[in-house]
């Protein structure tokens, strides 16, 4: 019977502690299985940090608290509870437990996937794009805010910045020579339209809206004229 229970939970070592993965069996069974495993191999678990991967199970606050207390009685600290359910995650956060384990969050290098790739699809970003952020999109990109140095934007279509452009931009990233880059204040660190990159280190700030586009085979930057 004990061995049966033992197979319900998987335990493996991580850099920061032990990861316990639960199966689909009921919480009561797995709970008991985990505790009995710990009791059996006391010396192994002594002082361990435990992360619990509950999968899709939903743990209630009292269940989590009970487990944490039972573990701490055995000198094992519950460090993280990872689960697919937002309820479980919230509960874990409420108890001050970690809800992720050393997996980098996808906060930078965002890739926005769109189902329908109509020609006129655009991504609208209503914020300042800061250093370290990279935004790629398969249509056009519109930013209502600044693009700071160290930020990168690449669009298969055009890039419109309603603000100051100071970062790196690449419009027509798959070769569309009709793509343009516009900004109210145009001073990117790096500028590329389709295949042609332009070194614009010495460009003076004009304080006027400008637009970059391909003429012939080269990128040119011109003041933006209404009505063109």
């Amino acid at each position, binding site marked *: 019977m004990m061995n049966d229970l033992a197979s319900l939970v998987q335990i493996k070592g991580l850099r920061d502690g032990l990861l316990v993965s639960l199966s689909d069996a009921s919480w009561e069974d797995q709970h008991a299985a985990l505790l009995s495993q710990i009791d059996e191999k006391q010396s192994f678990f002594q002082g361990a940090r435990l992360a619990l991967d509950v999968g899709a199970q939903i743990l209630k606050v009292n269940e989590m608290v009970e487990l944490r207390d039972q573990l701490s009685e055995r000198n094992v600290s519950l460090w993280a509870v990872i689960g697919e359910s937002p309820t479980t995650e919230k509960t874990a956060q409420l108890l001050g*437990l970690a809800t992720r384990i050393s997996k980098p969050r996808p*906060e930078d290098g965002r890739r926005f996937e769109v189902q329908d790739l109509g020609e006129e699809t655009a991504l609208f970003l209503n914020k300042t794009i800061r250093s370290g952020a990279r935004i790629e999109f398969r249509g056009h990109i519109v930013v209502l805010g600044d693009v700071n*140095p160290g930020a990168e934007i690449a669009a298969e279509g055009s890039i419109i910045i309603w603000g100051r452009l100071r970062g790196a931009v690449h419009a027509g990233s798959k070769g569309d020579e009709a793509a343009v880059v516009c900004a109210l204040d145009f001073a990117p660190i790096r500028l590329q339209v389709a295949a042609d990159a332009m070194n614009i280190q010495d460009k003076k700030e004009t304080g006027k809206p400008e637009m970059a586009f391909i003429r012939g085979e080269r990128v040119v930057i011109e003041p933006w004229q209404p009505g063109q």
Partner: protein
Amino acid sequence: MTAQVITISSGKGGVGKTTTVANIAVALAADGAKVVCVDGDIGLRNLDVVMGLENRIVYDIVDVIEGRCKLRQAMIRDKHFPELYLIPAAQTRDKNSVSPSDMTRLCNELRPEADFVLIDSPAGIERGFRNAIAPADRVLVVTNPEVSAVRDADRVVGILEAEEKRSTALIINRLNPILVKQHDMLSAEDVLDLLGIQLIGIVPEDEGVLVGSNRGVPVAQDAKSRAGQAFRNIAKRIRGDEVPFLDLEKQSGLWDRIQKMAGKK
């Protein structure tokens, strides 16, 4: 008492985070607040040195987290201010000894004990930084008026925005008004223009800050120091007072006169 937890961060190293923590802590404590400083730079601790408490360390933050001592036992009382405490970092461990949830739990334990908890974040944007910002109610980003420091500060502000830490404010440290005037240094306006976040203090460059750090007596204790005054003003703004920013031109006015006398102008 429910303490406000404030993390001091920067991205780039060497811009003066630790000095800023020590000085703001001293200024808040001098004003009668109960302050606990937490050194989040595990493995490279130095807040204890800057505060002059190095030789009093018995237990450190990792001892608390791993349960070898009680929180109280790791709180070192300051020499000058009885209501100022330091929880030192461990020198012989690394940043992975602590997790963000450990820091949150520690700070929640400190909240009823103090008015302010100040966390000194390590440089970088990795584990130590994540630990330091996890419990923060407020983050102060320190930068110097130089391009690389501002770039890193921008990155940090971006991460804080992604983490939805809403209350972020900027400290511009080591501003040299003479260099700014000669257009050899970014001005406070340039920095603010790029970062676009609330400004909470501008600290002028001042040799006294370095001397104070080496002696373990933060310059905020020196009533005559202009940098000290700047840190005291930041402390007041943290408490919610409206304090006008220092006129940093005054000092350069003196320099102008000296240079005129020397026939350089």
